[in-house]
């Protein structure tokens, strides 16, 4: 037999025919289809025993009780704890995905700890007379806040700065009518479960220019001309006729009369988006002070802690005199625009921020040190605006820290030369000693009076995500409640009023928030603004266009959504540090096509 081309072809043909009669090709076809189930990049969830662990959410002052479903110890999903006296088993979308934060790709993972320590020490040593060391605590009222305050008291010229605090609590259950001037009741104002549980009791009148989630849930929504809230308040206070107010606010006279009637029919409370707003003074008229607006109560604390620096607002701090500013941004809180802070700094000031996010003060500080995030550390949560009885609840860590984080309290303690302490434990001891209130043990699903619990068990239960709650005391009116008078807004020729329709605290949020912000349009993403069809047309902007939001303080690149529910002359934005730096509350802005 000779090897010809033809024979070679026949050989190959025979081979092909033969191969088809073997399992090989068929098996390869099926195997490759199975390979598509397992091709690289598809992660395999870890398996293991399933347990429930408990903690409290630290993402906002609400501090909702959290039940974590853990697989082999690792939390894989979070739910509320029901039944719960305050949080009622509810969690907000941020809280539901809180266990993703340690793995956030944008997290601050490392920082110049040594350099920052040296620079701070040097600045303290070299500071001139009248120059201060200050801590800015974005979430005052926590136990570590007291550490900060004690440390600042120990340092000569130490200041303890905080954002403006309400200084009162709201007992929603005591209200029959809630007149809300843009307070985002259903979107971050208080404890979600508490607001929802109280919702069936009160009638909600929401006064704000755009239909936010809260306005959509209100019994009555009054779409008001942006910026004219004080006129409406003046009319309610009787300082202006309803007809005049109707003309200015754009709210019909009848609607105003209805609000007035509801407000005066008893048990009304006025709430405002800014808890320190002058609008809150209407509560005096409606007799809400001491009934709905009540004094805040704090959990007992060790006597020794009272040696602490007083809370000071940023405005009260002396100009150009802060040589060292330590910003505790480990938990997101009320962001103070940088333009209010910058004038307070000395020319060669050292600014250190403890944070997990690059979005806040990290943009302004010299030293950015990584802070731990929820649920990595044990800490307590300051009081929420709508909890009346004092509470002490600990966010028990659910996972080991993913990055080497710096504890701001330890840093400040060391700076002040205070001995290292276990403040949470000390405070738990003080609470136990006071002997009041009840201990909620989520693991055992029971509550026990504190006096029936040993100190050790009390601490053990708390440190596993338990909660202490004070007995309901007699409501008293808040003391020293002073609301500043309404100031004149600065003149600004820009055509649009900025309305923050999407409250946002800043800080990290789960990457899965893309479901709400990009994969659907349920929430306004940080880089998006909404314009009315008319407003967009005036600027020559189409839906989805890139544009620049321009205010007196700067510019921001945004994507525009056109939304007929936005009134003309308004640009809806999402809150957050960048927006706060750009315009603060209700500024004026212009949107220009990019």
């Amino acid at each position, binding site marked *: 037999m000779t090897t010809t081309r033809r024979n070679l072809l*026949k050989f190959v043909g025979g081979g092909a025919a033969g191969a088809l009669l073997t399992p090989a090709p068929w098996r390869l076809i099926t195997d490759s289809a199975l390979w598509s189930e397992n091709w690289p990049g598809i992660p395999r969830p870890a398996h293991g025993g399933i347990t429930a662990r408990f903690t409290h959410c630290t993402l906002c002052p609400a501090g909702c009780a959290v039940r974590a479903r853990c697989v082999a110890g690792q939390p894989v999903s979070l739910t509320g704890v029901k039944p719960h006296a305050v949080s009622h088993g509810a969690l907000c979308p941020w809280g539901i995905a809180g266990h993703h934060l340690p793995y956030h790709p944008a997290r601050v993972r490392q920082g110049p700890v040594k350099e920052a320590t040296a620079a701070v020490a040097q600045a303290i040593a070299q500071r001139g007379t009248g120059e201060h060391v200050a801590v800015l605590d974005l979430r005052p009222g926590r136990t570590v806040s007291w550490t900060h305050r004690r440390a600042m008291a120990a340092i000569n010229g130490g200041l303890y700065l905080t954002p403006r605090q309400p200084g009162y609590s709201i007992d929603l259950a005591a209200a029959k009518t809630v007149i809300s001037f843009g307070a985002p009741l259903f979107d971050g104002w208080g404890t979600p479960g508490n607001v929802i549980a109280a919702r069936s009791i009160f009638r909600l009148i929401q006064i704000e220019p755009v239909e936010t989630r809260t306005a959509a849930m209100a019994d009555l929504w009054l779409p008001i001309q942006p910026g004219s809230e004080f006129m409406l308040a003046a009319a309610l206070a009787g300082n202006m006729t309803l007809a005049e107010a109707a003309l200015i606010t754009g709210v019909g006279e009848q609607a105003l009369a209805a609000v007035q009637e509801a407000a005066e029919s008893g048990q009304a409370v006025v709430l405002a988006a800014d808890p320190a707003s002058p609008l809150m003074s209407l509560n005096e008229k409606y007799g809400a002070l001491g009934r709905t607006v009540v004094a805040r109560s704090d959990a007992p604390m060790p006597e020794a802690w009272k040696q602490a620096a007083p809370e000071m607002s940023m405005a009260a701090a002396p100009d150009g005199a802060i040589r060292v500013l330590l910003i505790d941004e480990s938990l997101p809180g009320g962001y103070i625009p940088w333009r209010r802070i910058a004038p307070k700094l000395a020319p060669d000031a050292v600014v250190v921020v403890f944070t997990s996010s690059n979005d806040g003060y990290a943009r302004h500080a010299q030293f950015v040190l990584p802070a731990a995030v929820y649920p990595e550390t044990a800490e307590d949560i300051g009081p929420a605006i709508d909890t009346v009885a004092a509470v002490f609840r600990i966010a028990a860590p659910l996972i080991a820290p993913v990055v080497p984080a710096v504890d701001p309290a330890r840093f400040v303690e060391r700076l002040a030369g205070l001995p290292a302490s276990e403040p949470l434990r000390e405070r738990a001891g003080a609470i136990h000693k006071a002997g009041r209130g009840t201990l909620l043990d989520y693991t055992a699903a029971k509550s026990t009076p504190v006096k029936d619990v040993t100190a050790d068990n009390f601490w053990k239960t708390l440190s596993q995500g338990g909660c202490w709650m004070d007995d309901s005391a007699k409501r008293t009116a808040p003391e020293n409640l002073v609301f500043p008078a309404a100031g004149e807004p600065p003149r600004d020729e820009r055509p649009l009023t900025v309305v923050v329709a999407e409250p946002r605290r800043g800080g990290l949020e789960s990457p899965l928030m893309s479901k709400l912000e990009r994969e659907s349009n349920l929430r306004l993403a940080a880089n998006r603004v909404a314009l009315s069809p008319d407003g967009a047309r005036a600027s020559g902007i189409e839906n989805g266009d890139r544009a620049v939001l321009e205010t007196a303080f700067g510019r921001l690149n945004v994507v525009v959504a056109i939304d007929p529910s936005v009134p003309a002359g308004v640009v809806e934005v999402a809150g957050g540090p960048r927006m706060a730096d750009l315009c603060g509350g209700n500024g004026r802005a212009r949107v220009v096509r990019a």
Partner: protein
Amino acid sequence: MTGGKIAFASGMLLALAGGWLAFPRVLYRTHPQPVDFSHKIHAEKAGAKCEDCHAFRDDGTYAGIPTLDKCSGCHAAAMGTTAEEKNFIDRYVTPNREPQWLSYARQPENVYFSHIAHVKLGKVKCEQCHGNEGGAATLRPFAQDPISGYSRDIWGRPVNRIALRTEGGMKMDDCVDCHRRQGLEYSCLGCHK
């Protein structure tokens, strides 16, 4: 002309031989188990039953292959004289390192299989699916299909997919056979996740 026929036939024969004889051998990649564990010895000498080591957790999930602490309970020091035991103690027990057992029966991620439902409600014996693993004196090598990544026990044994008798096993066909016989076959998501 005959030359052509011979060429055709020889090509065919070669392919047939390759496909039927060589292919099944090269398809699977075998890996030895980290320790040559003898189920037989443990069953006979220690009188262990399957569920003594392969236990359920409190929540009803199946814990699978026991972890090292279960072994260390008895084997903190050598109990016998075999080299394999000494090896096991030196390499795993003393340094407290988990042996990386290769599970013959690990189902694909997309399979939901509840041991407790089968054992407790269905009264299925371990051997019915796993075969007489408990009586084996030695651990056979772990054979894996490198393309699909699945163990030979759960996917594609025998390679020609012709089974003369319906036997217990852990392939989807085996599951479906048994469920179908008992009228317990409803939907994909009954057993997939």
